[in-house]
């Protein structure tokens, strides 16, 4: 991004300063433009060479990338570690650019767990072996479906208690709900902790080094889980509040049969704005927004939706938004990661033709 520097421009126009300031405004060659992003130095990477103790963060990294919950787990471990201790991130195999992501999220070391397929028994054995090898003070897990399962397996293997679903975490105190959510338990953070989603802030400071550590050596023993296959899901049957990819139609769409066909071809769950549901073009169950469904999607495609405040509430947690709208000044254009000023109906037909 190019930004003007008015002081430098003025200095360039100075002819003489004595006996009085004379500026030559006739030629414009004096305007000096500096690149705003050029002088920003690369942030210094924090190395913790002699850690006081270790904190493990076990992440899922589904699909080879860190999700929000993974970053919160590393953030929680960073909170427990403070400045002097090191966070060791235990991760499945990640693509080559991902160690940077771990360092940015606050990890000082990484241990890659060699589990190419779903094998929680093997993963738990490897993590238990790493705990024996490195004796971390804390091990933080995500309280997600697979992460919570793994945390309990490790707790059973190491015969330790698990502080499950922590909602607040400081170096001196951890808090979790219990007794049907009627009370909360407070304790000094124990060894094994799993953290509930969206409760503990991710790390935002300077990046850490994320140096690789050797993989723990644990003998592979045949487990009780003989086979595991993930089944293909029909996106149209996923409940709207759980769908990872949602495509929604608004007032800019006229061909709704074509819209549903596009959703099917794209593998996205269909949604709609209030206007479309009010008109009866799509069922009320598809409505996205304050009076419809609040989404938890990763990606949202808005076709011909201007983005009323009530609609934006429904997509508040969505990280990646594609907006196709004819109005450059619509609220959703400001919110979108990819904004296209075009007729949604035409783009929809072109998309369908490309799939």
């Amino acid at each position, binding site marked *: 991004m190019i930004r003007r520097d008015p002081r430098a421009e003025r200095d360039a126009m100075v002819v003489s300063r004595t006996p009085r300031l004379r500026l030559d405004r006739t030629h414009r060659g004096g305007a000096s433009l500096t690149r705003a992003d050029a002088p920003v130095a690369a942030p210094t990477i924090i190395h913790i060479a002699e850690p006081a103790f270790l904190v493990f963060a076990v992440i899922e990294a589904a699909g080879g990338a860190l999700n929000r919950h993974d970053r919160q787990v590393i953030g929680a471990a960073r909170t427990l570690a403070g400045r002097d201790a090191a966070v060791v991130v235990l991760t499945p195999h990640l693509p080559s650019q991902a160690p940077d992501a771990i360092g940015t999220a606050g990890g000082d070391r990484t241990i890659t767990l060699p589990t190419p397929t779903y094998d929680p028994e093997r993963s738990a054995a490897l993590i238990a072996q790493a705990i024996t090898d490195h004796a971390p003070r804390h091990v933080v897990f995500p309280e997600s479906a697979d992460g919570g399962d793994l945390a*309990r397996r490790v707790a059973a293997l190491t015969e330790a208690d698990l502080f499950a679903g922590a909602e607040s975490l400081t170096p001196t105190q951890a808090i979790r709900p219990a*007794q049907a959510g009627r009370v*909360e338990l407070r304790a000094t953070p124990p060894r094994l902790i799993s953290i509930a989603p969206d409760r503990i802030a991710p790390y935002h400071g300077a990046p850490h080094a994320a140096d690789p550590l050797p993989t723990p050596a644990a003998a592979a023993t045949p487990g009780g*889980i003989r086979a595991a296959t993930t089944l293909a899901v029909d996106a149209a049957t996923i409940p709207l509040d759980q769908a990872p990819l949602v495509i929604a139609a608004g007032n800019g769409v006229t061909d709704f049969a074509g819209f549903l066909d596009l959703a099917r071809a794209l593998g996205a769950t269909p949604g709609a704005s209030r206007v479309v549901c009010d008109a009866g073009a799509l069922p009320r169950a598809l409505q996205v927004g304050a009076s419809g469904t609040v989404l938890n999607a990763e990606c949202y495609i808005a076709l011909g939706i201007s983005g009323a405040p009530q609609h934006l509430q429904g997509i508040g*947690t969505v990280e990646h938004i594609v907006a196709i709208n004819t109005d450059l000044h619509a609220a959703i254009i400001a919110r979108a990661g990819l904004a296209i000023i075009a007729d949604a109906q035409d783009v929809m037909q072109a998309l369908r033709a490309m799939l």
Partner: protein
Amino acid sequence: MNIIVLLSAGRDPQSGTPRPVPVELQAIALALALATHLAPTTTITGLHAGEPDPSVLDALGHGLTTLTLLRTNPADDPLATLAAEIDRARPDLILAGRRGRGGTDSGLLPYRLARARAMPIAADAIAIEPDGNDLAILQSLPRGARRRLTLARPAIVTIHEAAPPARTFAFRARRSGTIHEKPGIPAPSPTDNHEIRPYRQRPRLIAETTQPTTAGHLMLAPTPETAAAAVLAYVEQFRGR
């Protein structure tokens, strides 16, 4: 086939009165559905270690006919009692809810039991079928995904809330159910230093993305084909997850 359903003392989240844990009632329904596939000799037994809590006895009204009640102090660690009973009953399948509702609610006991008896454990099942000498488990994952597991018998399986609904309560069945009461093994649980306070709602993190993003890519009046290609390139990483 011999099926045991682990039952825990449940509490209502709002009133705190005894109420069965819904996901354990779903486990009973799943066991009854499984029994229809199998030989008529299949037995389904509820198992609880503790006091005769009304929430546990109410499970008899939701399709369970037999309940084994191992009398221990509710503050005791139930692991040794349950492990001894499993050694005696030798079940082929043990079902449990994924989390309790009324105690510590950590969901750890089935895993400790699996470790103590060297059984495999699978979490979050919504359907169970016999598969030769093994069990075929359908596991519920977030975002509507499903995973099929083959599990060696005997096994422990925890049940997810997305499993088929529980049977409705029948008062006569609740009265006519059989309760076998036995003494359990006293095993004081290690004292934890937890401080108990009334639950306080804490705000969830607000996603950083609720603020308008300025770094977004803007395309002004592109051709429909260019726009569609850009959308596909952007969306590609989220498709087919």
